[in-house]
């Protein structure tokens, strides 16, 4: 006989049954049950199969320390992989599936792996990565490894709230010590937050109250009422998962499977850790078999859930304080045997459920073993905060020693296992007074029995045995951190809560050292697995990177524009509802034969103002800007201090104290930050100001042979006389200022007209109306990238890379001639900058009739049967204007190889092309000022 429900026991509500299935069979439990307690009550023992060997596994613990009972759960059609059965609250309609088991945990076909354990020793993965060839093993390992199964039907509507909170005193853990501390602190006038990861406060009290003659629920209710009436705040179902920099403690509130948890970023002046302690497993042969649980788990299942885990129970422990556990289980009708855990040669009998123990050659019949090799305080948060640990020889465990002054540890988490002392300690610590001395608590040291034949489990979740630890030791993994990584001990989802001390103890025995000499590994958050959504909060999809929207968006949509994201802006890609190819060909034709009418509002518009503005722009530009006359515009590069091209664009001089920088639309924020850096670092910030006006203006561009006619008719300027390419004028549109810039990104005569956003729609419509008479029409971003590529105009970040300097793009003069200091100047004269082997921007022409070159194709040189890359294709289009493919590329020595043939290589395919100037259309520039 295994588990069964005991009448009137536990905190469950027997009037509220809950139906669920496990591996396809129907069962029922009660409100207040976890998946594990409900399954145990039905008599089920095998919940899952182990990670590596597919050993049948049940539960070891009753809460978050359990390493074994991991299940996949479907609820309302959504799958949740890798749920801890011991902490997941049972809900109506749950379909629970055991992991790592096919067809079921009870009858697992891969269980045969257990017989092949010889072939999966410690360090297996490391060795296989090196010899003979990882790929031989990869398919098998991939198939076998991992725990739960991901299904397609996952929840995407899972959005966590992230809250920021503060209190005077945070108490983590609502057991006897935590409740006492919270009450004392709250009654002393502190703002108190008490968190506990269970739904019910009380902690270990439920399993110890029996012997104290207390009614646990009444005692908890009394403390809770006192805390709340003193203004204290209590959060149940809430786990403190970690302590981070500057005292931030993350609290995750579980709201049941299917509902996103709440993440609280709590900052408290005083933090009291009362997280309790857990039993650690005894190392003996087959100690992972179903039916072997911790002493506390056996008692907790009875006290909280009314489940007696077995009928014939053997206690296998060195703990001196288990009499209350014994009494409660005996009172529930179990027969009890007590076995001295320090006896050599202990072995469990039975596979899917134990049937007995062999202890020193003597057989004991039992259906359940409640084991403990001593209690391990849960000191994770203390360690996260930088607190130190000291080995306590009497308790055979590490307990908190020196640490931060704002954090204190009390109760079992501090090694104070006695109720009365824990309450005194909590009272003192809540008032920041020194803690009273602890009472004497002594356990017999248990060392792993190396001579015991058969497998003895150290880490249940990752299937690490004593033999694996011994192998790691033999292979000279002398540091405990090496041991951990080599065997993967403590690296599973439970992070070694139960296995750590057993592993250290095994290592100590093998090395002939004491446990403190072996040392401990690092404790890292989170204390329990947390859904990633809790950290994401509302930062998802568009909330993570909101789109920038154009004032003219409704106008574009009215013209059937296909909208696309370009550098964070939602812009018209092409118009008219056609497919992309047709639309791009049509729009290029309009642009070259009449005029393109485009929305250029996304281009950055940063104003530099002040008496030192001219010095400033001359310093941040590669090109000389000191002699730029009012009303004139100049194209230029900004460099990083290492000489690399950071951004390109035009800058207009309004007057000696005002300049307008036009930068790449995707780059305005970065350019702004770059300029602010230099302004505050190298200039008097009172004499030069920078202001990003991008979103204040809308810009309509008219570019093409008919552009002048259209702009003349628009009437924003009185006339277009003496208004050459690269100059700026101010006119008016409907009585408001209109800024007109003669700049071109298509190579044709071009006007950019900027007006206030609220005049944009009128300007756009009027331009289209006039343009229509001249054959002009709206042109989207896709056609524009073709038009600019025909001219060899670059896009920074596409036609440049992390090595490109301005002289690689054909702009070498300022490097040699500019005498004033500018950002990046000295880097342009390094050995690397002067190298002959630099990649330079060139055009590529393919033979008649050949298709476009793929972007990213490498230009290669074949030598001795080996290909060496000389560069790669950065831009490639079909040019409707030229009726042939065009391409731009960065090629080593390309500048001096005009007209030469080159070989290309792309994903196994060879191509050839001829190097040409980057400008493929109107190289004389005759059209730009036509």
């Amino acid at each position, binding site marked *: 006989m295994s588990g069964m429900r005991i009448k009137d026991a536990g905190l469950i509500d027997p009037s509220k049954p809950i139906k669920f299935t496990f591996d396809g069979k129907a069962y029922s439990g009660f409100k207040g049950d976890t998946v594990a307690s409900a399954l145990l009550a039905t008599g089920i023992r095998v919940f899952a199969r182990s990670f590596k060997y597919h050993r049948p596994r049940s539960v070891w613990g009753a809460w978050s320390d359990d390493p074994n009972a991991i299940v996949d759960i479907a609820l309302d059609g959504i799958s949740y992989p890798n749920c801890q059965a011991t902490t997941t609250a049972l809900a109506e309609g749950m379909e629970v599936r055991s992991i790592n088991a096919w067809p079921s945990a009870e009858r697992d076909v891969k269980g045969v792996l257990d017989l092949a354990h010889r072939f999966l020793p410690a360090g297996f993965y490391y060795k296989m990565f090196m010899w003979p060839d990882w790929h031989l093993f990869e398919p098998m390992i991939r198939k076998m490894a991992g725990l739960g199964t991901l299904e397609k039907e996952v929840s995407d509507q899972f959005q966590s709230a992230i809250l920021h909170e503060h209190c005077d005193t945070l108490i983590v853990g609502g057991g006897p010590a935590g409740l006492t501390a919270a009450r004392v602190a709250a009654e002393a006038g502190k703002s108190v937050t008490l968190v506990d990861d269970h739904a019910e406060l009380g902690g270990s009290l439920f399993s110890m109250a029996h012997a104290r003659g207390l009614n646990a629920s009444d005692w908890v209710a009394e403390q809770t009422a006192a805390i709340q009436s003193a203004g204290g705040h209590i959060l149940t179902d809430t786990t403190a998962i970690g302590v981070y920099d*500057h005292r931030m403690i993350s609290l995750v509130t579980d709201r049941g499977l299917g509902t996103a948890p709440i993440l609280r970023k709590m900052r408290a002046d005083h933090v009291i850790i009362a997280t309790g302690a857990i039993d650690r497993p005894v190392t003996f042969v087959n100690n992972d078999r179903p039916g072997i649980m911790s002493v506390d788990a056996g008692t907790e299942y009875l006290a909280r859930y009314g489940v007696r885990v077995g009928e014939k129970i053997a206690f296998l422990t060195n703990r001196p304080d288990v009499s209350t556990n014994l009494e409660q289980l005996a009172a529930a009708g179990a027969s009890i045997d007590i076995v001295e855990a320090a006896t050599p040669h202990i072995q469990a009998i039975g596979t899917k459920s134990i049937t007995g123990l062999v202890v020193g050659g003597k057989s004991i019949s039992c259906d359940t073993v409640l084991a403990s090799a001593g209690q391990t305080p849960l000191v994770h948060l203390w360690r996260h905060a930088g607190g130190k640990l000291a080995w306590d020889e009497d308790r055979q465990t590490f307990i908190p020693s020196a640490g931060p002054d704002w954090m204190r540890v009390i109760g079992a988490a501090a090694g104070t296992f006695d109720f009365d002392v824990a309450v005194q300690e909590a009272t003192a610590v809540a008032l920041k007074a020194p803690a009273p001395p602890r009472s004497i608590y002594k356990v017999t040291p248990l060392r792993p029995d190396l001579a015991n034949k058969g497998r003895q489990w150290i880490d249940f979740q990752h299937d690490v045995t004593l033999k694996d630890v011994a192998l790691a030791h033999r292979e000279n993994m002398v540091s405990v951190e090496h041991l951990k990584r080599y065997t993967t001990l403590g690296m599973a989802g439970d992070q070694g809560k139960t296995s750590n001390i057993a592993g250290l103890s095994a290592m100590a025995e093998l090395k002939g050292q004491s446990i403190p000499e072996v040392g401990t590994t690092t404790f890292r958050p989170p204390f329990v697995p947390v859904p990633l959504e809790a950290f994401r909060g509302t930062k998802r999809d568009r909330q993570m990177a909101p789109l920038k929207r154009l004032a003219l968006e409704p106008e574009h949509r009215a013209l059937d524009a296909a909208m696309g994201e370009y550098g964070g802006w939602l812009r018209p890609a092409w118009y008219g509802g056609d497919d992309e190819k047709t639309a791009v060909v049509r729009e290029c034709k309009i642009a070259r034969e009449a005029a393109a009418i485009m929305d250029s509002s996304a281009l950055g518009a940063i104003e530099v103002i002040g008496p030192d503005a001219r010095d400033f722009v001359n310093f941040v530009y590669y090109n000389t800007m000191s002699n730029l006359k009012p009303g004139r515009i100049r194209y230029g590069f900004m460099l990083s*201090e290492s000489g690399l091209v950071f951004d390109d664009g035009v800058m207009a001089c309004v007057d000696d104290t005002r300049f307008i920088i036009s930068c790449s639309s995707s780059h305005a924020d970065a350019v702004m930050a770059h300029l*602010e*850096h230099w302004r*505050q670092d*190298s200039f008097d910030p009172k004499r030069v100001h920078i202001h990003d006006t991008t979103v204040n203006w809308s810009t309509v561009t008219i570019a093409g042979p008919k552009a002048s006619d259209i702009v003349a008719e628009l009437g924003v300027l009185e006339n277009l006389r003496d208004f050459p390419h690269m100059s700026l004028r101010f006119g008016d549109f409907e009585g408001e200022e209109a800024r007109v810039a003669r700049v071109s990104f298509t190579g044709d005569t071009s006007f950019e007209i900027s007006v206030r956003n609220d005049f944009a729609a009128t300007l756009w419509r009027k331009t289209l109306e006039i343009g229509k008479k001249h054959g002009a029409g709206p042109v989207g971003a896709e056609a524009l990238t073709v038009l600019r590529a025909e001219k060899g105009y670059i896009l920074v970040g596409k036609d440049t890379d992390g090595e490109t300097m301005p002289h690689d793009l054909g702009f070498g003069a300022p490097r040699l001639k500019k005498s004033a200091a500018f950002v990046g*100047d000295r880097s342009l004269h390094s*050995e690397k900058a002067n190298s002959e082997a630099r990649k330079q921007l060139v055009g590529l022409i393919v033979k008649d009739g050949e298709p476009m070159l793929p972007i990213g194709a490498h230009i290669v040189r074949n030598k001795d049967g080996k290909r060496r890359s000389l560069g790669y294709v950065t831009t490639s289009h079909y040019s409707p204007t030229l009726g042939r493919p065009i391409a731009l590329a960065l090629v080593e020595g390309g500048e001096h190889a005009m007209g030469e043939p080159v070989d290309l290589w792309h994903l196994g395919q060879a191509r050839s092309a001829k190097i040409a100037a980057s400008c493929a259309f109107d190289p004389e520039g005759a059209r730009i000022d036509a």
Partner: protein
Amino acid sequence: MQQFPCPFCGLRDEREFHFAGEAGKTRPDTTKEISDADWTTYLYYCTNAKGPSREIWVHTTCQEYFVMTRDTVSMEVLSTEALNEDAA
């Protein structure tokens, strides 16, 4: 998560800040001759102090650069001050 006191805005979450370099690094006068070694030192070499470290940070929401002295071991912020003393 760390909290930094911006000299202009007060205590804010670290997500609002960017590191901008170690304090006390002066840009060499590039109109004069500078050796490769000196320029490389300026560009790439940092003290990377273990313990108190004087650094330049920018509060991205107000765009002001400032000097922060913090302990790189304990993560404690020791002080913050405006970059230009009369800027605040």
